[in-house]
């Protein structure tokens, strides 16, 4: 698998899109930090980018890479290589190169800005960790979709729909049910609902480092108690890991049954 990973990574490192992605983050980081000069504002803007853009790019890039590397895949399938290694190798190649673009693109301007002297380093670290998790999750989802759909257009459409659902529609339904059932205690419901969507979960994990913690205290004690404790942090990370593991496991399963 490491060999496949190496070649996927090598292949991607020569793809123009990896650089576009990297320079986009670099530019964003530089603009936010050096034109705005306010770290806390930069972190908030970055959060918006990370919870919306990172999943979108992970999804599109994952689907695109899968369809575009079909020949490579077929070539590999005839070689004495384990099937799951091929797909996991390619998946890791995409996810790692996207994460690297994210970490380097945002990290460099922050390091130059003097992040390590700043108290915002933990906010920033939680941003990057969430970003990496989201990249791994949505790339895995994208691979799932692409593996199950031979038709590229259909695959792309489905991938965008999944992203749209998790990024926007889910929150809409969430809000609707909160408003509709507002006469009932909703603490536990909102806790579970926000755990189930990786975008919401990442958003809350980042917000806990920023402004929401006091506001949460203002509303539901259950929420704050949960996320404020070690158990909450542990559970959140665990759920995020599940969100990676389950789609990856499904990649393996579909791949072992698929005909080429």
């Amino acid at each position: 698998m490491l060999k496949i990973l190496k070649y996927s990574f090598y292949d991607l490192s020569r793809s123009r899109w990896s650089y576009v992605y990297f320079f986009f983050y670099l530019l964003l980081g530089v603009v936010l930090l050096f034109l705005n000069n306010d770290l806390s504002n930069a972190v908030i803007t970055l959060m918006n980018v990370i919870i919306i853009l990172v999943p979108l790019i992970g999804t599109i890039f994952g689907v695109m890479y899968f369809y575009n590397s079909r020949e490579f895949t077929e070539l590999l399938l005839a070689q004495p290589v384990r099937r799951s290694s091929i797909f996991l190798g390619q998946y890791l190649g995409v996810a790692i190169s996207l994460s690297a673009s994210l970490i380097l693109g945002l990290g460099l301007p922050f390091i130059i800005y003097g992040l390590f002297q700043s108290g915002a380093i933990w906010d920033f670290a939680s941003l990057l960790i969430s970003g990496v998790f989201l990249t791994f999750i949505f790339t895995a989802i994208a691979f799932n979709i692409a593996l199950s759909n031979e038709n590229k257009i259909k695959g792309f459409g489905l991938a965008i729909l999944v992203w749209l659902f998790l990024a926007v529609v889910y929150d809409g339904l969430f809000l609707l049910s909160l408003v509709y059932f507002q006469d009932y205690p909703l603490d536990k419901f909102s806790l579970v609902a926000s755990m189930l969507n990786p975008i919401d979960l990442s958003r809350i994990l980042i917000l806990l480092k920023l402004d929401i913690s006091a506001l949460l205290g203002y509303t539901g004690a259950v929420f704050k108690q949960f996320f404020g404790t070690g158990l909450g942090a542990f559970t959140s990370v665990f759920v995020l890991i599940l969100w990676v593991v389950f789609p990856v496991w499904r990649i393996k399963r579909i791949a072992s049954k698929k005909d080429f």
Partner: protein
Amino acid sequence: MGRFYFLFLFLGLTTSFQAQEIEVCKSCEVKTIQVAVDRAENGDVIRIKSGVYKEHDITIIDKSLTIIGEGLPVIDAEMEGTAISIRAEKFSIEGLKIINVGRSHTNDFAGILISNSKNFEVKNNRLDQVFFGILLENSSDGIISGNKITSNAKNQATSGNGVHLWKAEKITVKNNEIIGLRDGIYLEFVNNSEILNNLCKDNLRYGLHFMFSDQDLYRGNIFENNGAGVAVMYSKFIDMQDNQFRKNWGSASYGLLLKEINDSELKNNIFEDNTIAISADNTNRINYIENDFKNNGYAIRIRGAVYDNIFERNNFLYNSFDVAYTGRLNENKFINNYWSGYSGYDLDKDGIGDVPFRPVTLFSYLVNKTPEAIVLLRSMFIDMLDFSEKVSPIFTPADLIDEQPQMKRIQW
């Protein structure tokens, strides 16, 4: 005749110079403060040398004394009642350290209790482990300055206030540090007084608390990490300037709580990292001018019956909610403020955005109705919702608009 007059004057001066000075120390003739007080005449000076004096309920009545501690002598009240209580005119107390004031549910024991007094000064004392720190009632024309008052208040019922003023006039409270009490500074029926440059930190309830007090000024104070920074209730003509309200962070925490207060002004204050920077309830004719609201949960939360307030030239920087309203009615004016969330443009380059700004979001309205919705803060769906509400307001006050939002942060 002239000569005689001069002699008379001279005699008069010498008598006042002849004011006695009494020293108190362990090896002195006078070993306790109470004895010194009992021996002293009007105008005498009592010098207390360093050491520990286990005394409580030291009482001074109708004697104008100057009490000076040298080398920070300690008065240990051994948890029994008040340390010093005074009823007099023209006196001063300085340089003492008072510890272990008694606690009670029925009596307001204090480090220094001043009642029915006038023209006094309490300065540079240290009060530690007190119930009430400095308690003042029915008094006027006093200065309380440079004191450091600390305690470890755990709950409101068993703790007292740092500086507690009740029915007072023309009092100046300045340069004090008050940490870990119930209320840092408490004023009830206190008029024409000034609260200047104090630090109120880690107090259980409020850093500064006004009740039924008018024509007062507080300026240059720092309120940090209190249950709530400042509460101004049932008062009018309060001048609030150059204060910092910081880190009043937690459920139901405020930077500044305004309740039934009229005709006042807030100017050049800084509100940073508060759950709610200002909560206004029944407040009328208040001018908010050139304040900074930075990184608060809510910058301004308007509850019921708030009329004719003017918000002008303030900076609203990265608050989760800039302004939150409970109803759809708006009788207040927002103009010429800088809003970090403003995304309009300025084509004519006059420094004023060409599109008005709506500071109240639909989301703040939703959170008000369904508090749990706060978990959706800063999600894309909410941003879209807020955007559509801004285009055509349905739930939020339609006329709540800053017609002249500034393009750049206001320097004041």
